[in-house]
């Protein structure tokens, strides 16, 4: 086994251990405090608005597949979709989903159908949304515009793998005067979201939907596990800086080269 492979196993085992440990620790606590994220507060508010007004939430899941590096962003979007359906069980019209990837489209339909069956939303079992609106970045963005412009859509949530084409979606939402919550894993698109969405999700906030929308203990435990690993990374970075400053790196290199 290579050093990279060994490191990978260590990281996975560390994360699994931390997540299980924190879920056991958190089980005994009455409430777990997480820092407030405005975008998730907005989602909760918009779910209530859609229930009261009889409107729909639109969730666009991006154009990431499930076999590449973009898959986690797509899965995070599907988790959010499931949470929104669970939370809007009293709503006349469950959320409408749009995607730019065929596999994600099938998974979105499956999620809507499965959650709707559990919540006895009969109509959605027959006609689950989860439209594939286009397969290229621009065709996806343009195809999604008609859903955003639908008068029955009260808010738009864009979570998944997007490029700069997300500007089309966020500005269309703004023109409709409907709140736009957006998050993506692509760095250039994150700056676009920050400038154009009313409630942006920056960096790892995209993956925290389950913890903030009450998906379960393991979701909050994964946030705690991320914090622990983040501190480990901070100490490793600071340690390596000190190593370089005091010349320990050359000392270790000499030992490894056998010159001492």
């Amino acid at each position: 086994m290579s050093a990279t492979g060994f490191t990978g196993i260590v990281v996975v085992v560390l994360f699994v251990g931390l997540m299980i440990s924190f879920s056991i620790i958190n089980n005994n606590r009455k409430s777990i405090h997480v820092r407030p994220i405005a975008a998730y507060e907005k989602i909760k508010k918009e779910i209530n608005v859609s229930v009261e007004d009889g409107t729909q939430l639109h969730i666009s899941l991006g154009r990431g597949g499930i076999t590449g590096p973009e898959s986690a962003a797509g899965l995070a979007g599907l988790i959010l979709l499931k949470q929104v359906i669970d939370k809007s069980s009293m709503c006349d019209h469950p959320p409408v989903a749009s995607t730019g990837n065929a596999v994600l489209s099938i998974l979105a339909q499956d999620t809507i159908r499965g959650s709707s069956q559990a919540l006895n939303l009969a109509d959605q079992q027959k006609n689950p949304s989860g439209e594939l609106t286009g397969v290229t970045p621009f065709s996806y963005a343009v195809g999604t515009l008609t859903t955003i412009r639908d008068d029955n859509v009260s808010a738009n949530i864009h979570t998944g793998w997007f490029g700069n084409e997300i500007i089309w979606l966020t500005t269309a939402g703004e023109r409709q005067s409907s709140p736009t919550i957006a998050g993506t894993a692509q760095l250039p698109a994150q700056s676009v979201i920050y400038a154009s969405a009313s409630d942006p999700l920056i960096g790892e906030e995209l993956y925290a939907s389950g913890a903030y929308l009450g998906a379960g203990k393991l979701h909050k435990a994964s946030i705690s596990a991320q914090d622990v690993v983040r501190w480990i990374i901070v100490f490793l970075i600071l340690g390596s800086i000190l190593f370089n400053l005091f010349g320990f790196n050359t000392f270790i290199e000499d030992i490894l080269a056998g010159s001492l």
Partner: protein
Amino acid sequence: MNIKVKAPISTAVAIGVGVIVLAGYFIPSMDSIRFILLRTGLVLAAVALLVGIINLATVHIKKIGKESENSGYSLILLISLLITLIVGITDMAQTYLVGRPNFQITNWVFTNIQLPIETSLLAVTTISLTYAAAGILRKRMNMFSISFFFVVLLVLLGSFSIPSATIPFLQVIRDWILRVPALGGARGLLLGIALGTITTGIRVLLGTDRPYGG
């Protein structure tokens, strides 16, 4: 009742395949199994594209039936889809008859219709991005938005390549911004995204998140 039968099977398949693919990254002897599973996944994704296009056509046929203001666009989409499909089938038949790849009409469609449309959309995107950058202070007047706005201005002013328009001092500032705070911030964001990606993957492998069948 249906979901109760399907859910454990799909969960077991997802977890099993996920664990084998993950192990294949770390253990070289499992690499061949990982490749077989990934290749199968890619074939299934191609089939899913076909299903997705049928879904796309079905959705737009329903939209035409509703007689909404956007039904005209749905009609254009369906006609374009049909023409592209006929062109593709014709080219495939010619390839079969000639005995060598012959996709002239398909290439013509992509070069003369698809490419110009996507290029013009890219141009509109540039204008939309400029509009968004200009409107950020109107949307959110706080310290971060102000610094975002002025950094954009500084980087743009320092990026001129015409000799008469270049400001050497601003070019130095631009280079420093791109090399130090922008790069550092980007790495910080990427680390956060990597941590989020790992925990999302582990939750799927543990069966806590099941984005298949609810």
